[in-house]
């Protein structure tokens, strides 16, 4: 599903070159539930952006579902993000002036899906998230957990193969966090590949594999194939 080969990312800061990622080799199989952990400044966000096709690596090859997306241009990457990747963010990133259902419809607008179909799919996605009575609520009128459910509905509505969650529980209390993570687990069991970036070990425990990033490297893993206790 995801294959990163010798990925590096560096910025030019003044005259100094800063290496954020250094020779990353990583492969994630289809249907996996992977957590990426690491202290802040470790490069895990950059790694996440590259996996999410929001950023391009400086060198190296990134194969997503067999396609070499590292050679794609902006327009092709937008299509990949739209069709193959669903994003869930810490701050939810819902559009504040759109109702829950309109927010869920957004990725389908860019996918060119007709209005009626969009509406129906968005309804189904929200129903699945247990929000059937919140279709026409603005994000402001929703609780944190509900907002994140809307965001998850939006992430999965185009049936992407990969769902990327960046600190999805960072703004939620523990109880809500657990129910959100259980949702991810359900989606994973339905076949979606899920990558969660977090710095909380309890969250990482939901994943079947944890990747530790430190100073731009992936730490040799000692925690392979660990199953999270349910």
């Amino acid at each position, binding site marked *: 599903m995801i294959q990163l080969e010798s990925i590096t990312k560096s910025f030019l800061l003044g005259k100094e070159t800063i290496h954020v990622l250094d020779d990353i080799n990583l492969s994630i199989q289809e249907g996996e539930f992977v957590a990426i952990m690491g202290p802040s400044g470790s490069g895990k966000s950059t790694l996440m*952006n590259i996996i*999410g096709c*929001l*950023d391009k690596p400086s060198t190296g090859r990134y194969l997503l579902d067999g396609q070499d997306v590292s050679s794609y241009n*902006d*327009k092709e990457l*937008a*299509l990949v*993000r*739209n*069709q193959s990747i669903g*994003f869930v*963010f810490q701050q939810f*990133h*819902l*559009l504040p*002036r759109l109702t829950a259902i309109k927010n869920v419809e*957004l*990725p389908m*607008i*860019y*996918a*060119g899906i007709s209005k009626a179909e969009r509406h129906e799919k968005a309804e189904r996605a929200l129903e699945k998230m247990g929000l059937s009575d919140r279709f026409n609520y603005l994000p402001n009128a929703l609780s944190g957990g509900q907002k994140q459910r809307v965001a998850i509905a*939006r992430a999965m509505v*185009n049936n992407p193969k990969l769902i990327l969650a960046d600190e999805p529980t960072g703004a939620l209390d523990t109880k809500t966090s657990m129910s959100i993570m259980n949702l991810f687990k359900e989606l994973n069991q339905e076949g979606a590949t899920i990558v969660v970036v977090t710095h909380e070990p309890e969250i990482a425990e939901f994943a079947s594999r944890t990747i530790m990033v430190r100073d731009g490297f992936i730490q040799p893993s000692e925690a392979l194939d660990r199953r999270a206790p349910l």
Partner: protein
Amino acid sequence: MSFMENLVMALNSLKTHKMRSILTMLGIVIGVAAVIIVVAIGQGGEAMLKSQFTGSANTIEVFYQPSEEEIQANPNILLQAPFKQEDIRALQQLPEVKQVVASSTTMSAARYQKDSKDISVTGINQSYLQLNDLKVESGRNFTTADFLGGRRAALISNKLKEELFKGKNPVGSIMTVANQPIEIIGVLEKPTGILSFGSMEVYLPFQTWKVVYGSSDYTQLTIQAASAEQLQTAGKKASSLLNKLHNTENSYQVINMEEISQGIGQVTQIMTLIIGSIAGISLFVGGIGVMNIMLVSVTERTREIGIRMALGATRGQVLTQFLIESMTLTLIGGIIGIFFGWGTAKIVSLFAGWPSLVSWQVVAGGVVFSMVIGMVFGILPANKASKLDPIESLRYE
């Protein structure tokens, strides 16, 4: 993503900032309204000027301007009526001439009871009524019998009714014109428009006029051509025929309409140029206002742009979204401006008695032009939006 979706999105986003949108539109509204008003009044004025010189029904006036020698030979020549009964009969023989309308005007005293006013008395024939719309407010108009029988009947202007009859209904009263008793059969309508001041006038059938003043000559002569194309030829033929009949060189003349319409055209062109540049400047300033607000809007919505890009919006789609938003803004402004300008032009023409013409070309031009402004001044902000880095934008607070 369809155009309609972009449009709905643009309208929603403009609705969110109602006050800001309205204020931004104002520049465009004023600019477009100014153009519409000026063009409407300008075109109306041009049409009015042209119709004054050409007459509405393919008519052209023949006037008499004696040469120096003629005046020296006969100093009273200017006081004499220059058109004779025979002239009219001869003119009617010309194939291009459909009708000859002649009238005679002289100044006289009109008397009613003890009051006396100096008025202008015009003797008219029946064809005069066909070309000049004398609308009767009360009483009745002339009939064929009045013209043929030379009845002592008169139509008087509204102003004379006010001055001589102090506003009382004069229909049926007898007044004296040049010491001859005349019955008033009707009062004419007040002339409309603030530019026309009513004057004290009396109209008599020409037969009656002849009896009152003892002359069968005419002071004014207008010919009606069979068609608009023949108007100029008819005028030339008529003037040369009159010059031949009166043995004069070039005393009988018609207005050269080509020269006049050229002159009017030049004036209009200069006016259009001046007004056009003023309107252009105001629209330019309005456009800069639009650009300014769109730049603010792009900055404010940086996060929204980042989210849209993460969800799969291409740079082109973001560019289109903001471009359509600015074009919607200016288009709405333009449409409001058109209505505003059209209404103002109508009101102005209502009070000034000056026609206003809002042609569809001007309306279409206003719509297209306001959209072009939105596009031209929206391209920079839209481009800025589309060039944003999605990662930075998502982090933007």
